[in-house]
Structure formats: structure tokens, C-alpha cells
């Protein structure tokens, strides 16, 4: 072993790696500085569970739903693996959001860490992209309708919106092409992107060093515990607690799988996954010509605001108590997002009137000019079985 290390040491900058790992942190930090590591753990968890789920999943409207059912019902540990992936996705959104809040609250985005921040904002969008492309895959009611609405929201982009919707859907409507696209984006494109961005993010974090709490004096910035093993141990404890929670959820809370997607469902009330409810709710407030506000203008402004935050707020880092404006804006934004999410979750569902019986197309042949015999006009005729 020693000889192997000696061999590698002669050929690689191992000492440099060791120095990097043991680099001292700022004197004052707290457990909130483990949120980034928790997000990294979740990414690895999603990659591993996702890679295994792909063994059984089949991205086609004919098979997707049954495959997910099969994974959940029949494959040993299938419900657990799917549970981890599902709850891991929700946890990712929560942890990434808290991570962002920590950075905002402590002003960690300020110079010289602007690039770390910008890459982080892009990573947040990638996480949401993972969510959006991921939950179409089970091909149940929620998957289908959330994607109908979500791809249509993209259509609100002025001028090119309709084309964007069609490109996302791979045609006019959600179907086989949409599913393979979303699968490719979810399992190939976004992972490549996320690896590159996380690599960059981590490089910046190492390069500039941990930001620590604002109260660190310049002398204290390098006067704390070494990253390894001290910070890594704290991170490991935080990750362990997170994992216990996720494993508990995966074991005891079944992942929902609704009825298979049905484009004519008479009684379905489309609702997105919880982390898109705030956007869903936002869309209800803008009527008529203003609909572009909720779907495009406001989200774009928020993203731009986030990206350029370090350049808009260039004052030196101070403790939060001395930044009343930042504190107010941040708190209001969080409260607003939480309220919109709750309202979206509670938004009233429509009652289906019992009198509204569905009538199926009342003849055997379509697209032909021949007249069907009158006696095929049975109201409950099931056209799918009939053909």
C-alpha cells in the first residue's frame, strides 16, 4: 500500500490534494454550512437510485405506467428504491432552497464569490428541471396533466412560445415523443449538465474558501478547524439524519401513483408536484392579456434578480441584523412562496355533476364516409373494446 501511494505521489500532486482537504475553515461557521454537502449527497442518491430504476423503466406510453407499477409492486426493494428517488427529489428542492437562503442570509454571494452564486442559481433551475422532467415518467394522471400545463406555460414566452411548447412536447400534444424526450433530458442531458455545474460550483467553493459567518474578521477566515475531518464529520452527521428521514419516508409512506394518464378524464383536477404549486397558484392571478405576467414575466424577473444579486447588492458583508432591507425582502419572499404553495395546495377542486354522463362516440368506424347502422348508437359503447 505504501508503495502504491509512493508511486502515485511521484506522479500526481497528492500533497496539494491533502492541503486542499485540510484547508482551515473560517473560525465561525455553523451547521447551516452543511446544507451544500447535503445537496451533494442527495444528488448522488438520485443518481444511484435513478440509475437502478432505469433497469426496469420503459419510456413509452404503452409501458411506462406498468413499468413503474411493476417496480413498486413486484421488484424486490422496488418500492424502497422508488421511494428514495421520489422523496429524495422533494428533499433536494427543500435542501437546495435552504442552502440558497443560508447564502442570502449570510451574504455569502458577495465578492469574490459571485461566480459560485451564479452557478448555484443555475443549479437551482437544473434541479427544478429534473423535477419537471422526472414526474412525467410514471405516466399517471398527475404526470400527464402537469406536463400539459407546464409545457403550455413555456408557450407564454412572447413570439416563440408556441414553438417552444411544440419542441418540448415533440409535437402538438403530449405523447410517445414527449415521453422519450423527457426521459432523455432527465437521465442524460441534465445529469451531464449537473455534473459539470456541480464540479464548477465545488471548484469555486474550494478556490475561494468557505465564506463562514459575516462576523469573521479577515484574520479569522483561515483560523478555524480543517475541512477534513472536522467539517466533513459534521456534514456526515447531517447527511445521516437526512438519510434516516428519507429511508423512513421511503419505507412507510407509499409513493403515489394515480390512474394511468387519460387525455379525456372527465373528473381530473390537474395539480403539479408540491414544489411547483407556488407557480401554479401564481398563474391564477393574472387574467386575460396579463396571463403572460405570471407565466413568463415574473418568473424571468425573479431568475434575473437572483442571478444578478451579487452585482445589485455590493455592500460589504454584515450580519443580518444590520441589513434590514435584505432581511425584509428575503422574509417577504419566503412567506410569499410558502403562502402561494399552501393556497395552491388548497385550491378548490371542481365537483363533477352526476348528470354529466359521458357519451362515447357512437359508431364503429371513423374517418370513413360510411354511415354506421343506427343500432350501434349505444351510449355506453366502449370504442376501444369495440375495435
Amino acid at each position, binding site marked *: 500500500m505504501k508503495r502504491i501511494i509512493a508511486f502515485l505521489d511521484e506522479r500526481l500532486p497528492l500533497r496539494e490534494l491533502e492541503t486542499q482537504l485540510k484547508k482551515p475553515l473560517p473560525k465561525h461557521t455553523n451547521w447551516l454550512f452543511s446544507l451544500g454537502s447535503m445537496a451533494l449527497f442527495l444528488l448522488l442518491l438520485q443518481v444511484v437510485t435513478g440509475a437502478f430504476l432505469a433497469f426496469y423503466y420503459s419510456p413509452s*406510453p404503452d409501458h411506462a405506467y406498468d413499468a413503474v407499477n411493476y417496480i413498486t409492486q413486484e421488484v424486490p426493494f422496488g418500492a424502497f428504491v422508488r421511494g428514495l428517488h421520489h422523496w429524495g427529489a422533494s428533499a433536494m428542492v427543500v435542501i437546495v432552497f435552504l442552502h440558497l437562503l443560508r447564502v442570502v442570509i449570510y451574504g455569502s454571494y458577495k465578492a469574490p464569490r459571485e461566480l459560485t452564486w451564479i452557478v448555484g442559481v443555475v443549479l437551482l433551475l437544473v434541479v427544478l428541471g429534473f423535477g419537471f422532467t422526472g414526474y412525467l415518467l410514471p405516466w399517471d394522471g398527475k404526470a400527464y396533466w402537469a406536463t*400539459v400545463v407546464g409545457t403550455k406555460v413555456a408557450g407564454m414566452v412572447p413570439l416563440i412560445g408556441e414553438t417552444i411548447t411544440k419542441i418540448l412536447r*415533440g409535437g402538438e400534444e403530449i*405523447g*410517445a*415523443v414527449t415521453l422519450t424526450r423527457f426521459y432523455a433530458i432527465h437521465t442524460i442531458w441534465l445529469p451531464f449538465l449537473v455534473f459539470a455545474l456541480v464540479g464548477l460550483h465545488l471548484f469555486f467553493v474550494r478556490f475561494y474558501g468557505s465564506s463562514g459567518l459575516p462576523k469573521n474578521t479577515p484574520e479569522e477566515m483561515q483560523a478555524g478547524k480543517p475541512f477534513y475531518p472536522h467539517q466533513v464529520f459534521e456534514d456526515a452527521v447531517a447527511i445521516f439524519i437526512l438519510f434516516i428521514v428519507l429511508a423512513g419516508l421511503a419505507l412507510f409512506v407509499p409513493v403515489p401513483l394515480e390512474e394511468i394518464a387519460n387525455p379525456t378524464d372527465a373528473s381530473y383536477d390537474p395539480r403539479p408536484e408540491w414544489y411547483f404549486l407556488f407557480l401554479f397558484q401564481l398563474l391564477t392571478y393574472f387574467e386575460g392579456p396579463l396571463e403572460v405576467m405570471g407565466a413568463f414575466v415574473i418568473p424571468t424577473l425573479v431568475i434575473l434578480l437572483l442571478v444578478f444579486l451579487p452585482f445589485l447588492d455590493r455592500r460589504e458583508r454584515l450580519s443580518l441584523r444590520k441589513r434590514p432591507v435584505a432581511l425584509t425582502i428575503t422574509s417577504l419572499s419566503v412567506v410569499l412562496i410558502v403562502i402561494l404553495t399552501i393556497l395552491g395546495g388548497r385550491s378548490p377542486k371542481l365537483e363533477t355533476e352526476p348528470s*354529466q354522463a*359521458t357519451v362515447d362516440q357512437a359508431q364503429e368506424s371513423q374517418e370513413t364516409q360510411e354511415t354506421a347502422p343506427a343500432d350501434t348508437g349505444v351510449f355506453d359503447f366502449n*370504442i376501444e373494446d369495440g375495435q
Partner: protein
Amino acid sequence: MKRTPENIGQPERRSFLKGGIAFIGGLISFAIGVPLIGFAISPALKKGSKKWVDVGIVDLLKGSRYKKINYTFQSKDGWVEINKKRSVYVTDKGDGDFVVFSRVCTHLNCLVRWNESKGQFLCPCHGGVFDKEGNVVAGPPSRPLERMPLKVEDGVLYVKEA
């Protein structure tokens, strides 16, 4: 420019090499990029062929009041021949003067539902409300419900489908 012992390291030589790298890189990117972009977005550019699909027999639909009709028709979904399902409201304004409303909400494509007691179409997503003529009464939608082109032939009601 020919490489000679004299011109190695000369600025002209260097700019020639830089230009060459950019040219080769650009050419390859272009030659691969254009087909790939076309490959990816082609389904969006394809025009669906409109066709007439029968909804039901006129005699059975006469006197209909916002009757929800589900119908299927053969269509291509990528590489799959499928029975596309669709759902519309058919109403008879008097003696076979039919109106067929698409159920697709003009806001974000959720399916609206006819509410008989209110006499309105309600959208389950963002609270869009349309009156019995399909005009927007409340909520986010900016356009009325689509009235599908229709025709009656040999006692059968057809609508035009994309």
C-alpha cells in the same frame, strides 16, 4: 502559409494557426450542429394533417345540451399508430344546428367541464370560467373556447381534427 524555420513563432504564423483552429472547430460544430438541431426540433415543425372525425349520429345528438362526447380517432404519435382520445361538448341550438366546443381550456390546456346548474364551463386548474357560448367570463383565459369546425354528412356529425 508554408512552415519554414524562419516564420515559426512569427505573429503571422500564429494568427494563421489560430484562424485554422477556429475554422476547423467552427466547421465541425456547424456540420454537426445544424443536423442535430433539426433532428431535435423537427416534430415541432411538422404540420398535422387535418381530418374529419365522426362524433356521432345526428339523430342521437339532436336536442343535446352540452353533452360530453368522448371519441377516438386513428392518429400517429411519433412512430406509433394510436387511437387518440378526445373529448368535446356537443350542443344543439335547435333542430340540428350543432355547436361543438373543444374542452381544452385556452389558458393552459386543462379540460373544462360543463356545469349545468351554473350554465358555465369551468376549468379545474386556474379558475377559468366560460359562458354557454364559450366566451370568457372570469379567470385567466384570454380567448374563448374553440368551436370545432363541423359538418353533417349522411346523418353523421363530423368534426375536424388535427
